């Protein structure tokens, strides 16, 4: 994260459904895990949305945070193969997946052999 040397962090993949933000409970859970892992959170978001919009879907996390370094890398998955590759090569501690992903792509998620936790996304409010 910084130039001061290698640092530990909590690294998670977030599978975001189009137009749905993460719930507050997930935001708080991510921050809690990050605080236990050196106050650093590395997130890779995967969605059909463009990268900037993927970041805005994490507003509940960003506005709840005051102390954790958060790095968000946003990726678009255009196919099931894309998704499988991203998840398998991502070196994630955990995957959080919107329930629609579980319903549609459960098979891929099982193949990655990483712990997957489902969540219910919330419809994002209109932009400011």
């Amino acid at each position, binding site marked *: 994260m910084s130039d001061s040397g290698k640092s530990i962090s909590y690294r998670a993949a977030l599978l975001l459904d189009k137009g749905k933000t993460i719930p507050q409970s997930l935001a708080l859970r991510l921050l809690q895990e990050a605080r236990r892992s050196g106050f650093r959170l590395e997130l890779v978001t995967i969605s059909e949305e463009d990268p900037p919009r993927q970041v*805005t879907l994490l507003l509940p996390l960003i506005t709840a945070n005051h102390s*954790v370094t958060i790095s968000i890398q946003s990726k678009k998955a255009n196919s099931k193969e894309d998704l499988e590759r991203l998840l398998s090569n991502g070196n994630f501690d955990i995957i959080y997946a919107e329930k629609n992903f579980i319903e549609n792509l459960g098979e891929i998620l099982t193949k990655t052999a990483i712990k997957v936790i489902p969540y219910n996304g919330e419809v994002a409010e209109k932009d400011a």
Partner: protein
Amino acid sequence: MPEVVITTDRTMMSDHHGKEFLGFVATGPAIGLPEGLWLWISSPKPKILGDGVPLEAPYGLRKVEASLIKNGIDAKIIDPDYLGKYAEETKVLMVGHHDFFAYGPPSNEWWLITGREPINRISFAKLMESEPVRRMKKNGTKIIAGGPAAWQWLYEPDKWKRWGVDTVVDGEAEKVIPSLVRKALKGEELPSYLYVGVKDVPLLDEIPEIVKPSVNGLVEIMRGCPRGCMFCSVTLRPLRHIPIEKVEREILVNVRAGIKRGLLHSEDVLLYGADGVKPKEEPVIKLHEMALKHVEELAWSHASLAAIRYAQEKYKLISKIMEMVKTKQDFLGVEVGLETGGIELAKKIMPAKSAPYPVESWHETVEEAFKIMHENDIIPAVTLIIGLPEETEKDLLQTIELLDRLKQYRSLIVPMMFVPMGALKNKEFYRREMMTDLHIEVLYKTYQHSIFWAKDILKKYYLKSLLQFPLRGLLEFFIWYVERKVDSFSEELPILSKEGATT
């Protein structure tokens, strides 16, 4: 050619005629004047040394530049009008701003009141849509945006995408930015967003010193704030006092480049070297002695009303400092936060703002500090926030009462609509439909106060040299125009008529 170009738009890349306060003119739309003239009042083009390198540049950009240079990265700040020269070679373009999209105070209230986009927003959009920036993006240049207004990108994802911004960095960047830029230079994948948390905030010896001059000689003397006001983002940062030797070296960078002005930047200049919230005499005196040894003109960025009262009551410190300052100039400008006259509201959102005095005596502290400043020729630009979460009618009535008590003291009171930042960043923005009659009355009172004192300040203190006469004339015209405009519509608002007003 540098690999990394750092820039911003014209409203930021300017010396504001040597008057930092004039920079705030860019936070509004052009009123009564053509846009070009309005922009010239707030943000004239700075002196350019050659190849688009400005003599002075915003301090935040200078810190980023210093951090990159210190880490062996070839970076330069370039004026926005000269980006074309660098469009083919630049690998990383970094853009910074105090208010990218005019969502910050006070831009958002001028926008809300006038219904028109502020100049700073228009100017920044022009920069990002300019031919050189578009050409850079086409050539594969990575774009990194950051600064105090980084959070505003979260509300503009379409522009974020359209302008091809690769990464938005939110927070103190000095420690994280070299590795991010190295990644960009190597063509590695970048994060879309990076928030700098406590573990990555630079320690005192990790804050690089500027290597080239800053706008109006601004130098940082402290970072962070101990008061913990919930609406402020600065208070979330750890408090650090910059050693006086370091401050002096930065002042000398400016002075050697011919910038003889100095602007001491802190959330509370009087807390320099203090334990907690009680100012100490010695470090503040030493700081001013050192600064005045080098500069011909001095200003403060911010001071708190409680510290002003305490410093004067305990040490007569304000009088002592002003005695030193007045050997060089007639007055000293500073921004102070009043924020609310509502005692209950103050207890909830800024319980330490009045410390070491109890929050219950906030009105006395405010009035006493105003009186001290008035008597010592310190001219404050005072911020006042309306629409804070949990604000009640009683809070607004107390604010109105306090404004009445402050009438006799020279100051400019600038009302601001609540913007969710700091510990309140998950709250709602203040919107036009939330405006009540009492809000209108607060706005009108601050307007009356500020117009009265603006005329006095222009007459006795501001822009007195012959060269500044055209600028002064334009400001006088602006005041005249605003008075006419406000008079015409205030007659239509019952709350502002003699019968409707509370006074």
